């Protein structure tokens, strides 16, 4: 009887292994093949081992066979999952109708074998040794902080090649659309001793972050010109990115990308009207970029995505994706409001104030409305502020000539703040960054988690 049992286990197991092998041979893409190999393979090998254990019958043989089965069951799914994940990230061809993991995991554009065959990318194309030596020299010579004109030199020195090759596409910076003059009345509102109780700001801080530095820089410039305050651009080479990079010429490539970003910034910021400081540093951006303290009254301007690797694609892809999450760290460390500059064009002159009843949220809302960062005609308040705060906000809005609306029921789907109906608003004001503080949580861009389709400004206290 046991012999028959052993025999049938072995036959069925072998059958499963043959089927698995057939699947590996015949399926269309690596993921389907892996599905065959992992599931049927584990079952087949396990059954054959079980058959052998029964056939042998002795205690030690059974023990070893059972140990092997347990280990196979424990390890094969893990190995299969790792392989599948690695295959996805490495860009293995996918034959299914849609990519269900898009936005959840980073994915290379081309499969590994295509990338291995391709010639090395341009920034590191030059002779490696000379580029390295040059960068070392520049690193020694680079001053810590530079006035505007001199600042480009160290960054572009070793990477002169790509910068020269690059054609200056758009010559003229976009003209300032509007920056309304500051309202002049003196109100009687909240704790007047607080640095941010008065409207306006003393400086605009913004990081120079590639590969798309120009929009942020021109926005910062317009904000600075509107109130005639200095603009401070901070170009940081993130040393963490350099250290985690896995190619030797990482520093050079990142410098090249940063040089391009600095050149873009210089092109759109213009000259003369307000002081413009460009700081160039190597180090930790989350220490270097945020402003020093409240007394300095600096407005921090951040992009909605991107980080200080400046779009140089060479770090571990997963980490590179998550690095942009540190933008929220910058916002949290900055003393004073942080404005995430939206990439879209606003469709309606309306701001949404998310009010949790805290003094911080209230101060931010009053400050932003009185400073006049946006040309608004309408204000929508959501959340549950105290009645006095609602009255105060309403009075402020009335004095500024803004229509005021308090939405107590938002009808938003899932965890969004507001439904898609409101996607065209100019700005959203919040006391705290949205939770979880991630640029891309579970495949949804963080602005979509506020209002689906929203690409305007987000102001955070």
């Amino acid at each position: 009887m046991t012999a028959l049992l052993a025999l049938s286990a072995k036959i069925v197991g072998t059958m499963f292994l043959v089927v698995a092998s057939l699947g590996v041979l015949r399926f269309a893409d690596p993921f389907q093949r892996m599905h065959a190999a992992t599931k049927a393979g584990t079952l087949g090998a396990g059954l054959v081992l079980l058959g052998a254990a029964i056939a042998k019958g002795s205690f030690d043989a059974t023990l070893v066979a059972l140990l092997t089965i347990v280990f196979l069951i424990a390890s094969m799914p893990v190995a299969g999952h790792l392989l599948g994940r690695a295959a996805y990230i490495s860009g293995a061809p996918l034959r299914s109708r849609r990519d269900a993991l898009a936005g959840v995991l980073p994915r290379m554009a081309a499969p590994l074998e295509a990338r291995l065959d391709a010639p090395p990318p341009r920034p590191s194309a030059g002779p490696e040794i000379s580029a390295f030596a040059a960068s070392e020299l520049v690193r020694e010579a680079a001053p810590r902080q530079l006035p505007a004109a001199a600042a480009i030199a160290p960054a572009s020195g070793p990477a002169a090649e790509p910068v020269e090759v690059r054609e200056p596409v758009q010559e003229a910076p976009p003209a300032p659309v509007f920056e309304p003059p500051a309202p002049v009345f003196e109100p009687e509102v909240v704790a007047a001793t607080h640095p941010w109780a008065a409207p306006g700001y003393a400086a605009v801080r913004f990081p120079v972050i590639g590969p798309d530095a120009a929009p942020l820089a021109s926005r910062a410039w317009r904000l600075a010109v509107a109130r005639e305050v200095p603009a401070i651009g901070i170009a940081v080479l993130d040393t963490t990115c350099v250290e985690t990079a896995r190619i030797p010429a990482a520093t050079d490539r990142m410098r090249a990308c940063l040089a391009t970003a600095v050149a873009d910034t210089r092109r759109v910021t213009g000259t003369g009207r307000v002081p413009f400081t460009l700081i160039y540093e190597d180090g930790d951006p989350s220490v270097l970029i945020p402003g020093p303290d409240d007394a300095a009254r600096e407005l921090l301007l951040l992009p909605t995505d991107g980080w200080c690797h400046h779009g140089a694609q060479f770090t571990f892809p997963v980490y590179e994706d998550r690095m942009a999450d540190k933008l929220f760290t910058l916002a949290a460390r900055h003393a004073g409001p942080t404005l995430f500059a939206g990439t879209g064009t606003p469709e309606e002159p309306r701001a949404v104030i998310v009010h949790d009843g805290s003094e911080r949220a209230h101060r931010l809302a009053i400050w932003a409305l009185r400073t006049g960062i946006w040309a608004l005609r309408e204000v929508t308040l959501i959340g549950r502020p105290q009645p006095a705060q609602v009255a105060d906000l309403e009075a402020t809005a009335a004095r500024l000539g803004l229509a005021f609306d308090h939405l107590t029921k938002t009808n938003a789907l899932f965890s969004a703040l507001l439904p898609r109906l409101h996607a065209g608003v100019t700005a959203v004001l919040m006391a705290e960054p949205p939770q979880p503080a991630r640029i891309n949580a579970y495949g949804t861009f963080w602005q979509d988690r506020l209002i689906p389709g929203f690409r305007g400004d987000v102001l955070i206290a």
Partner: protein
Amino acid sequence: MIDSIRQSLAEAASVVTDPAAIASLDALVSTIAVVLLVILTLALAGAALRMILGPGHADRFIALDMLTGLAVAACALTAVTTGRREFLDVGLGLALIAFLATIAFAAFLERKERSSS
């Protein structure tokens, strides 16, 4: 028809109980294990073909992962045909090492971005 089925059932029962028949069944089991080994070789050839054909690195690594299961099963069958239980130990060692190999290849696949030159 029913009679013939009843008769074959009785034969099967006598096979299970009769010591001489059990001895012949043991020989049969050994023979069948050899046949299963041959069939397993076909499966092995299939996985090997996928490993040779590719087309991508991911396909080759997956085929290698498949070979692990096949090799462990082959070890178990060899232990039955030869009657040496050491082959089961070989299977255990193979499973342990192949898991590490798969993890290493997965790490390579995930982190390798371009040729290092």
